[in-house]
């Protein structure tokens, strides 16, 4: 490990009784130490020809923390050393969280890029054997659009109206009950939402009926509480005086809500809905149970037959396990991530562009 490069400077004077200053590590110490640790560790690893990015990062971090804490404990005293130790930990935690984000995005981009082209996006898997070097995700994109679209059509009216009810009408016990159960609904595991629709379909249509509508309903169960929560928050931001001004003009309550409250919060509601869509568009488990996992051809009909979707496509390709299947899975993952990111950024931009000035 690196030892010589940065000897803590300054004489070893313990803090004198009345002095406000005590010996401290120079300001450039952390930067200089980090750089020299990185360099020395890289050198040692290369010398043993076992250079790996993860190993290098870990050893650099470890040697940095050890040297910092030791030097600080000797020069600055125990309390300062603890403080520096925690500071390194906290920075480390953050880097630790960013690492998987970067890694996921990078591996998906690198592995998915080759197959991600116009052909892949515009053909289905109809007539393609799993091991053939052909086929694409068009049918899955169609399915994702149809299923998510229907789920949105179901959950937005219910979610927004429930939020209106909670903010504008409900009082006391019923309000608490609904709020509580919306929270409960937020916690339903997605696979359970899928099983619910399976059970419902068995009662309604008998066993073995798999179609897009079933998938859409299971996604709606997951989406409704998210829409309620975000809409509720947005409606609460509408200032009280705006409502009162409207009432004072003799406008009935429902018109006040539809003409004043909802338009005022429209941007926020849109943001919330888009984030909810972004959340359910990647849901896989319920769709495996409800919309099937073996469709290969384009199906626009939500009420008849299995329907492929992007997430289920990724899953079923991985289950097949061949090299070309993995290539398709990565390319489909790239498609899905780009879609989700697009929704995410659009939502943020709408939220920021139309944010009421007072809410800041």
């Amino acid at each position: 490990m690196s030892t010589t490069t940065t000897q803590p400077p300054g004489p070893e004077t313990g803090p004198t009784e009345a002095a406000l200053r005590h010996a401290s590590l120079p300001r450039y110490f952390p930067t200089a130490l980090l750089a020299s640790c990185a360099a020395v560790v890289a050198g040692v690893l290369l010398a043993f020809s076992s250079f790996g990015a993860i190993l290098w990062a870990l050893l650099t971090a470890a040697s940095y923390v050890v040297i910092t804490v030791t030097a600080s404990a000797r020069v600055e005293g125990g309390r300062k050393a603890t403080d520096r130790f925690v500071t390194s930990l906290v920075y480390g935690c953050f880097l630790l969280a960013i690492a998987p984000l970067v890694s996921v995005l990078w591996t998906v981009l690198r592995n998915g890029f080759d197959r991600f082209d116009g052909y892949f996006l515009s053909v289905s898997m109809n007539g393609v054997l799993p091991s053939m070097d052909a086929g694409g995700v068009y049918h899955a994109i169609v399915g994702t659009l149809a299923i998510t679209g229907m789920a949105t059509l179901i959950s937005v009216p219910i979610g927004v109206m429930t939020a209106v009810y909670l903010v504008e009408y409900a009082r006391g016990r019923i309000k608490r009950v609904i709020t509580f159960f919306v929270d409960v609904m937020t916690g339903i595991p997605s696979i359970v939402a899928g099983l619910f629709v399976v059970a419902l379909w068995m009662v309604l249509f008998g066993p073995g009926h798999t179609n897009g509508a079933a998938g859409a309903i299971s996604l709606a169960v997951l989406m409704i509480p998210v829409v309620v929560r975000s809409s509720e928050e947005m409606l609460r931001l509408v200032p009280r005086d705006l409502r009162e001004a409207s009432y004072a003009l003799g406008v009935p309550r429902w018109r006040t809500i539809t003409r004043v409250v909802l338009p005022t919060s429209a941007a926020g509601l849109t943001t919330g809905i888009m984030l909810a869509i972004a959340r359910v568009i990647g849901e896989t488990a319920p769709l495996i149970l409800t919309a099937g996992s073996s469709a290969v051809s384009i199906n626009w009909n939500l009420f008849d037959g299995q329907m492929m979707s992007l997430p289920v496509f990724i899953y079923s390709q991985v289950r097949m396990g061949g090299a070309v299947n993995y290539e398709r899975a990565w390319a489909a993952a790239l498609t899905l991530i780009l879609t989700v990111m697009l929704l995410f950024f659009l939502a943020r931009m709408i939220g920021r562009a139309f944010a009421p000035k007072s809410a800041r």
Partner: protein
Amino acid sequence: MAKRIDVSGLHVYYGDFLAVEDVSMTIEPRSVTAFIGSSGCGKSTFLRTLNRMHEVTPGAYARGKVLLDDLDIYGPDVDPVLVRSEVGMVFQKANPFPTMSIYDNVIAGAKLNNRRMSRSEADDLVEESLRGANLWEEVKDRLHKPGSGLSGGQQQRLCIARATAVKPSVLLMDEPCSALDPISTLAIEDLIHQLKEDYTIVIVTHNMQQAARVSDRTAFFNLAGPGKPGRLIEMGETNQMFTRPEKKETENYITGRFG
């Protein structure tokens, strides 16, 4: 224990905005110095620069010299953490740690410097500090109850005990009575009288009667104009400041309020 503070040419900035301009003053040890002035004139901001608490506000910084006896608290290598254990502070709103008992509140700061304090040492320090804050008799039977159960005035005295337990040489008080009823205020004012035996005390107050009652010297701050920085207008013996101020501005402020 108590130390003298010498301020020379101190400017305080919030980012680009100059909040306090060119303050120089001497604060005598074992005395009470009051800062008075209208709201927003920078007296609280200035007070916070005396133990570098202003640095907690993002973008705030100070230029100039503040000597504590002979040591510049803005000198190179000076650790704000050590400055603050030497210059304690009591805030406008009593802020005992809500999750800690009365006992733990008092001992919290002292424990930072001395982890291995023995049980009896700690007990002694708690009793001494609470007695010093005139609170011992009221709480000695419930030391291990939460501090948030006390009345507002008791909480503020608990905060004073917590500050003195660290054994600082200076105590800064930022409108310590503004949230208290008259009786609690009186208790705190009595306490300030006792504390000046051992500490250098600086108190910011909006209440001029209070400044007249508790302080030995008074400093008057005012804005140079709307949107302009705050300045020290005049400083002197409290008696003289309230009877024969040198500056017209001071007289206007004092008479305007005193009627």
